């Protein structure tokens, strides 16, 4: 075969998403991209795209406004999921405002140490807006310092992506066989990922909102970042699998924190480190290739009852009186922005 053929097959959404990204960046002379999606279940409902959607969709030439129309996209400021102690909201944006390079939650912790009882969620504009339940117009959201994802109608999003993929040169086939230089198997819901010989496996549990979307995006980017002649890509395959393992470990840690009955007893050093350090001093250490943001880790740690014994010494740099006034003014401002935004 003089040209190269990639077959992307599996669940409909991953195939459409991975297919569109590959069609945008792996196409042209001598390249053939075939998408073979399985039929999506009739009860398919929504899909969450994490904040990275801005980059992905911009690259695909899909404006948010067109997704709002074509896939019923609405902004999502936080996602709710289950954890060992019930339900937790994971905000995409930081709580409060950092000051002098110190994250806000240290100042909040200091207020608690001085006997006050402020609720951290009260300092999260994302959570306040999310809880208020109003639907923010995109124009309003654009003016706020917030990261946001998108909730979309799954079938319509698949349709938008598939259309984009084909307009970028991909073919959609019901029965594409297995004749390809590389088969990308999209099996989100299973647990094996990596690039082994001519199979690129994109897989993980889809049990945290937005995870399925992000795994597909990361896998497609990882492959593109290592693009080479497919018949001569042994070192790239090893590197892809190394990176995929690192990503899986980050997801595994987050899931274990949320769901394991006793996350403190984890055997994984990277998760132990996060729990221990957060408990010791309120810092959340970051590993290479994190999937979830610091605000999500913070929300998950607190939801599991893991509480910092102390706050960062740098948070002592302002006097008590100034701290109290700063906190109350921030709380008031967040309340006002929430009210205003929901009226807009």
């Amino acid at each position, binding site marked *: 075969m003089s040209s*190269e053929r990639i077959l992307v097959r599996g669940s409909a959404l991953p195939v459409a998403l991975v297919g569109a990204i590959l069609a*945008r*960046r*792996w*196409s*042209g*002379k*001598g*390249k053939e991209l075939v998408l073979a999606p399985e039929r999506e279940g009739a009860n398919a409902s929504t899909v969450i795209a994490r904040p990275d959607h801005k980059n992905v969709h911009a*690259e695909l030439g899909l404006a948010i406004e067109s997704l709002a129309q074509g896939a019923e996209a609405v902004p999502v400021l936080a996602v709710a999921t289950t954890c060992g102690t019930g339900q937790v909201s994971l905000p995409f944006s930081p709580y409060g405002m950092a000051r*002098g*390079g110190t994250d806000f939650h240290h100042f909040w912790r200091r207020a608690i140490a001085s006997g006050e009882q402020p609720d951290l969620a009260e300092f999260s504009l994302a959570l306040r807006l999310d809880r208020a339940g109003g639907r923010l117009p995109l124009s309003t959201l654009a003016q706020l310092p917030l990261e946001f994802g998108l909730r979309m109608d799954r079938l319509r999003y698949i349709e938008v992506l598939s259309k984009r993929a084909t307009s970028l040169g991909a073919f959609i086939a019901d029965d594409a066989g297995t004749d390809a230089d590389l088969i990308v198997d999209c099996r989100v819901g299973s647990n094996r990922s990596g690039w082994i010989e001519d199979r690129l496996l994109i897989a993980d549990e889809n049990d945290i909102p937005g995870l399925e979307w992000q795994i597909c995006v990361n896998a497609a980017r990882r492959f*593109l*970042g*290592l*693009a*080479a*002649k*497919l018949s*001569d*890509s*042994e*070192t*790239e395959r*090893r*590197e892809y699998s190394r*990176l995929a393992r690192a990503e899986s470990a980050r997801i595994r840690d987050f899931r274990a924190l949320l769901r394991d009955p006793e996350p403190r007893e984890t055997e994984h050093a990277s998760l132990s*480190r996060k729990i*221990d*350090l957060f*408990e*010791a*001093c309120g*810092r959340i*250490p*970051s*590993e*290479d*290739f*994190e999937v979830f943001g610091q605000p999500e880790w913070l929300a998950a740690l607190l939801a599991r009852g893991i509480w910092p014994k*102390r706050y*960062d*010494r*740098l*948070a*002592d*740099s*302002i006097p008590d009186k100034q701290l109290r006034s700063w906190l109350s003014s921030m709380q008031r401002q967040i309340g006002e922005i929430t009210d205003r935004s929901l009226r807009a």
Partner: protein
Amino acid sequence: MAAGDAAEKINDIVVVGGGTAGWMTAAGLSSMLGPAGLKVTLIESDSIGVVGVGEATLPHIKLFNDTIGVDEAEFMSATSATFKLGIEFVNWGRKGDSYIHPFGEFGLANEGVAFHQYWRKFADLQEVGQLEDYSLPVIACREGRFQPPSDDPRSVLSTYRYAYQFDALQYAPFMRSHAEKRGVARLEGKVVDVALEGESGRVTSLTLEDGRTVDGDLFIDCTGFFGLLIEQQLQAGYDDWSEWLPADRAVAVPCESAGPLRPYTRATAHGAGWSWRIPLQHRTGNGHVYSSQFLSDEEACSTLLDELEGNPLSEPRQLRFVTGKRRRLWDRNVVAIGLSGGFLEPLESTSIYLIQEGISKLLELFPDTHDCAVERAEYNRWMDLQFERIRDFLILHYHATERDDSPFWNHMRTMTPPDSLRERMELFRAHGHVSAYEHGLFLVPSWIAVLIGQRVFPRGYDSRVDGIADDQVLKHLAGLKAHMQSAAGSMQDHAAYLSAMTSLSDAA
């Protein structure tokens, strides 16, 4: 308060040693934690010389200076500093080779494909030229130009960062003045005794030659290679990396400035090591790093003196070191920052960066009480990662070579590198991809600069390059090269820019 009860709050910090590391640490801690009630004391002795580490720096130092409130013009003037856009490596891949590792990217990515992939496809064509023809900071270095980067992200003049080359012997006093203004107390004296608490083994106080006792909660060891507290007292141990980086000596001598004031540092490979040349406003810093297994001290000194561009300004000074790092950079209540924590040869100007990283991480994890095993473990893990990733990058310079003209180079070329580096080189050799990490000093453009600069030429390239017609790519390359050249031409002369800046500062 002495370091007694584990639950007592840590408030008294004692920095031991007053060179670059000591005064940077004192300035950093007092600026950031002084307002939170921390008391910082620094002990130094005029009778103990300083190594004066790191005349050449990396762009990160600007962030440190900005964070602690240093005025750039005042700093440039006080430390006889020049600007730096990269490091030139001469004779590394082969004798006669020269390349610059710039503080910026090469070209512009196109359609998600890294620039060097397009260049690689056509690298054999004469009109395409060298990869560095597509780097603005490299062209500026070669032409002796400098100006601060533009704030406009659309401009090619925004695609680089800069660092400084300064007189380390002037930098420490400059930091001292900054630190003292923020309340750091300086004690003149030599530490002659260290008291440890029996059960915990923590340092509780230091006794000076004149009998004074200095109590503290947390001690920062900035005593250089000697490691007065971290090694002589706590015996934290040392990971010796001379298996991969066998250079163990250096000889240094300043000389009169000669020729144009270059905005870059030069590292020239020799038969058993390499020499540095760092242009400052008032003189040039020079040194020769070498392995004593392969070269005598006399030969090393003679090589250095032979290549000086101006008259020497002092007698050559010898240094001995073992490349590696302290096994525990933070042990009990002692944190080793600077040479007491480890030594990596100054090939990529990493010494001050490692000091800065040590200070930043300590600030992030600053303990409340002595019950801080978790913070300590995280500090050590983080710093180990930093050291190891820099180590691999330095080994690359020696290992990726075609030189076979001396036993030293034969040894370096044929040695077994760490697996992490071997895998990285294999990946790049295949199709020019660079294995990425997020937490480390040297990111993808730096690896590309050294790999290509030292003739690690990828066998193939990103297959997507073929998706664009050849004539279109060549046209793009030609346009970009001309654009870079023209942008560099619009920059100011380095010496003129510097002179204007420092004369304004002096006038103020």
